[in-house]
């Protein structure tokens, strides 16, 4: 082991000072070291991705291919989710609003909650599951089968070809998917309103949009770019840094979903706080 490794340093220091350190404490030191190394590696990965993004010879064809994979191929899943999201929200909220005699506020309430919060977060979480795990597994499997090494020795920069294209495609496609989910959510909400009522689509939309302001829309859209970047970065990072065994492909896919979902929630919290200050 490297003599500068913290575990070795701790062991040597304890030896010099004649201090007894338990194996548990040494294991904790190693865990802390691994965590900090992982965080540092992630930021190095991020900086390298940014550097490659702005360097020459952008892989435009691969970017288009990834945009198709991420955007178009997620449409069926996002359609169903978006529609059900609006439908369920309406069915759940309606009794309370009826109780207070405020059923006319239903379209506005659903629109605001969908566009400000539910649409972006739920769509991003679904994309974290579908896209993040896909990226983690695909790149992890490429790593295990030496395809990334093969790319590197054939004078192709794998960061540029594999990572930059996927991160950029996720960053640009997820906002589009969120807007699409929002639209279908409103459609689902209209369908939900018609289960126990009778409201025309034009009237529903007019009531929904009369409660929406610019400030509801813009921050919600801006944060989806960050959601996309986080999902793309984490998925690629986990896949690209996967270990050598086949087991590591599963670990990469799994940890990509877990970490990107967690980061989506954290980014959302930060975005909400910033919006609140405005």
């Amino acid at each position: 082991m490297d003599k500068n490794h913290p575990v070795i340093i701790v062991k040597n220091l304890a030896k010099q000072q004649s201090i007894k350190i338990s194996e548990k404490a040494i294991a904790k030191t190693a865990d802390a070291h691994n965590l900090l190394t992982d965080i540092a590696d992630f930021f190095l990965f991020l900086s390298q991705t940014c550097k490659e993004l702005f360097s020459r010879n952008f892989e435009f064809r691969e970017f288009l291919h990834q945009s198709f994979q991420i955007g178009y191929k997620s449409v069926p899943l996002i359609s169903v989710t978006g529609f059900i999201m609006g439908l369920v929200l309406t069915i759940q909220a309606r009794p309370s609003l009826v109780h207070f005699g405020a059923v006319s506020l239903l379209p506005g309430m659903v629109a605001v909650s969908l566009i400000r919060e539910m649409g972006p977060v739920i769509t991003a979480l679904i994309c974290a599951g579908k896209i993040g795990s896909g990226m983690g597994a695909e790149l992890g499997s490429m790593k295990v089968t030496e395809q990334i090494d093969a790319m590197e020795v054939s004078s192709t920069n794998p960061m540029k070809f594999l990572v930059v294209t996927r991160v950029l495609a996720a960053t640009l496609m997820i906002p589009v998917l969120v807007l699409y989910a929002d639209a279908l959510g409103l459609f689902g909400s209209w369908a939900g309103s018609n289960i126990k009522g009778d409201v025309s689509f034009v009237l529903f939309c007019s009531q929904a949009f009369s409660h929406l302001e610019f400030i509801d829309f813009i921050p919600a859209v801006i944060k989806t770019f960050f959601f996309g970047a986080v999902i793309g970065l984490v998925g690629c990072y986990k896949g690209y840094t996967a270990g050598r065994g086949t087991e590591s492909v599963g670990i990469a896919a799994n940890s990509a979903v877990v970490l990107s979902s967690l980061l989506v929630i954290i980014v959302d919290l930060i975005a909400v706080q910033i919006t609140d200050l405005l």
Partner: protein
Amino acid sequence: MDPLLNSADVPVKNQNPGQVIEISHLRKGFDIQEVLKDVSLKLSNGENLAVLGKSGSGKSVLIKCIVRLFSPDFGTIKVLGKDVNTLNSEDLGELRKKIGFLFQSGALYDSMTVRQNLEFPLRRIRRNLSQKEIVEKVMEALENVGLSDAYNKMPSQLSGGMRKRISLARTIVVDPLIMLYDEPTTGLDPVTSDEISLLINDIQKKYKTSSIIITHDIECARNTANRLIMLHDGEVYKDGTLKEFEDSSDTLIRSFFK
């Protein structure tokens, strides 16, 4: 960029009759394990050098250090006169264009057809080629490995031996000066192994390459190598001709040749 390395799109065959690869006192370790302790070797122009050794003796690490997939902890690696460790990424890219690397697993791109697999390095390394020339080069490489009918197949539709051949075609399609073979016959039946060995010889004759063949398949080494090196415990244990190895009374060497 180094003007010597910038031979643009058409690699020029190495005219230097001397060494194409010179490795001196190479050391490489991973965490607690030191895989290569002190390895020095030379590969002459036009030579086929087989590197023998048990699994885990650092054979694959050695050739991955040559193309800087791994950075050495100590020592120098000169390829075509250039110190690999001191090259910037642009010059390293130029140098890699002159090296063909056959991976142990074949490393074909799963999401691409055979044609796309072969076109991928060609489009990046030989940027001046027209579409017609690219198709011709791909067909020529596939014919050289006897698999021209696999043109539109996906890697998942190919057998292990076919994948190795396609992978070989992908490396020769860009006319490399140096070939690095990582366990070319591992996991293949004896007949297919012999076919791969013959292909290695054919490639050496046709493309005038210098090669390092990492193997623990003694038949492959017999069929392909002009010279052999045995790695043991991270060091060069023996360097010599096939006859010297076969005549050796050393127990470790005998265990490979029995």
